[in-house]
């Protein structure tokens, strides 16, 4: 099963390789990983999408917690949370498909951010499923390039996750 985990870490030398090394060294799987500083000093937040059965997930959480550089680990999977991902998509457009491409962009509330006579570059944010959806519809036109950020997540409700 797929799990989305937030990890608050010390923003210090080598921390990313500690986390990624833990996953590779123990044979855990990383589907996506995004990281950026938070408002708290010297603190970064990683969002990791991984998969495994309950036993593996328990190990992943415990092993992450065991790292000295890890401040907090939250597995959002069984919680109510919002996930958002950014994707930039370069799609080929022929004269007869350009209108259709714009319609799709409109329906998904995406944006065209760069145009050439034969391509559109589209920006879209949303839950990963929504991004899969637009990619599915654009695919027949010919997708030249996709860049996805991997999801970041935040819990619903008033409470925040801090270090």
């Amino acid at each position, binding site marked *: 099963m797929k799990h989305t985990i937030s990890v608050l*870490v*010390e923003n210090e*030398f*080598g921390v990313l*390789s*500690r986390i990624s*090394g833990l996953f590779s*060294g123990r044979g855990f799987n990383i589907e996506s990983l995004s990281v950026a500083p938070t408002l708290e000093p010297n603190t970064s937040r990683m969002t990791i999408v991984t998969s495994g059965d309950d*036993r593996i997930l*328990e*190990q992943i959480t*415990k*092993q992450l*917690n*065991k*790292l*000295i*550089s*890890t*401040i907090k680990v939250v597995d959002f999977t069984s919680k109510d949370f919002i996930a958002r991902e950014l994707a930039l998509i370069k799609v080929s457009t022929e004269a007869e498909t350009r209108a259709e491409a714009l319609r799709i962009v409109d329906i998904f509330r995406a944006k065209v951010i760069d145009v050439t006579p034969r391509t559109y570059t589209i920006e879209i944010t949303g839950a990963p499923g929504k991004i899969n959806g637009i990619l599915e519809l654009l695919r027949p036109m010919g997708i030249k390039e996709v860049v996805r950020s991997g999801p970041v997540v935040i819990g619903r409700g008033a409470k925040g996750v801090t*270090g």
Partner: protein
Amino acid sequence: MKLTGSQILLESLKCEGVDTVFGYPGGAVINIYDDLYDSSINHILTRHEQAAVHAADGYARCTGQVGVAIATSGPGATNTVTGIATAYMDSIPMVIITGQVPTPLIGNDAFQEADICGITRPCTKHNFLVKNIRDLAKTVKEAFYIARTGRPGPVLIDLPKDVQVDTLEFSYPATVDLRGYKPTYSGNFRQIEKAARMILEARRPVLYVGGGINLSAASAELLALAEQTRIPVATTLMAMSAFPQRHPLALGMLGMHGTFCANMSVTECDLLVAIGARFDDRVTGRIDSFAEKAKIIHVDIDPTSIKKNVAVDLPIVGDLKDVISKLKASLDQKEEALQSFKEELQEWQTKIATWRERHPMVYQPSDTVIKPQFVIEKLRELSNDDAIIATEVGQHQMWTAQFFSFSQPRTFLTSGGLGTMGFGLPAALGAQVAFPDRQVIDISGDGSFQMNSQELATLVQYQLPVKIVILNNNYLGMVRQWQQMFFDKRYSQTVMELPIDFVKLAEAYGAVGFNVTRVDEVETVIKKGFETPGPVLMNFQISREENVLPMVPAGKAIHEMVLAS
């Protein structure tokens, strides 16, 4: 007064109570060595950086204090890696200090540059690259704190040369505050109450104890719990000296080369209380049939150890000393239930006694050829009770575990997790430095001995009276045994074709050596070796194709043992 970085390092070590370090100099630590020249810190020069780390490790294992090793950058640092990984696998508290090229050169493939932080990330509890002298004292403080608290482990500090030269006012921090590191020491009261009830309900309980008992210095508490409840105790390789092996409740070692009665007891038990042990594959054999009929209580300070390999009915996270004493106190309060529990235990004890009698730990004695087990028994008989025994890795290591009957905590130093040949001699060296007046013996194989035999020089230089016992079968015996049993006796690269004159080797270094080829010389040579001052090497030519039995073949359940006939 301003101090240089290397002076700050040494002052910080003193603040941590360090009086002895093991190491090897080089360009990137030359400033540290210049300050060591007239420092009160005692430095032991080994002949290889790997040995310096093993020596610090042996020092730590027998004292419980943090061992310290120093090496230069590049090859000095990479030479420490096997030593660090060995300590990591056995959770030994250590701080390793490596020199590094100056910060402006890091990443430039400078002379003797190695990314030792990158290399050791998976085999240290934590590591640090100190880029600024302002962080130095704080880093040393944190390194020692991390190494000795929680589940202990090695911590590496990489110290660039320019930081060693830079100057700053020295002040040592009084406290450590690491937001991401707060080990749990106190066992949860409710969980411990539950454990007490589970114990009292059990009819066939077994205590399965590991190296954590040594690390937590909980041998006395363990003995008290065992005697209070009369529950038999199976020990892992790492815990052989943590529970007196001649005690009536001792089942001996369990696992691949464990006793019949330990393995049968674990297989048949209805409650397994695992304390400071980690269900290693050498212990469990085929995991799905390990303690199949039992509920499992698992006590460990490291939450990741719990439920890693087996499902657990009751986890307790905490320091073993704390948890065991609380458990005992809780059982004391349930006096009546405890009394009837002990009465009910009779049946289980009778059963265990029959297993013990049916297949005791035995070997075929001989008048014509020296049996390794016989040498071990004689060593036990002729050595002091508090003698410290180090081993290398192989058959001799298992025979020591099986036949030495350890009686005092922290007297058995062996590489369990990583199984590092070459560990024993430097570890014994470190132990002898820690305890100059105690007997220290390295029980070695002819193969392993050659992995760090250069340390004979260190022993002689510092007149460290380590007694080296080589059980010489002219084989990489443990591998040969596997080849005999599972590869049709195809002894591929395990025959040591060149017979080494170990006595001459010892003499070349200025140590004393004895060869022993006859059974009737065994006792006299051991006595003579023990009486001779300074380092002594005793080379016993043993029965060559002796096997370590019992043995659980890989992939089998632990009750499916090949037994000694």
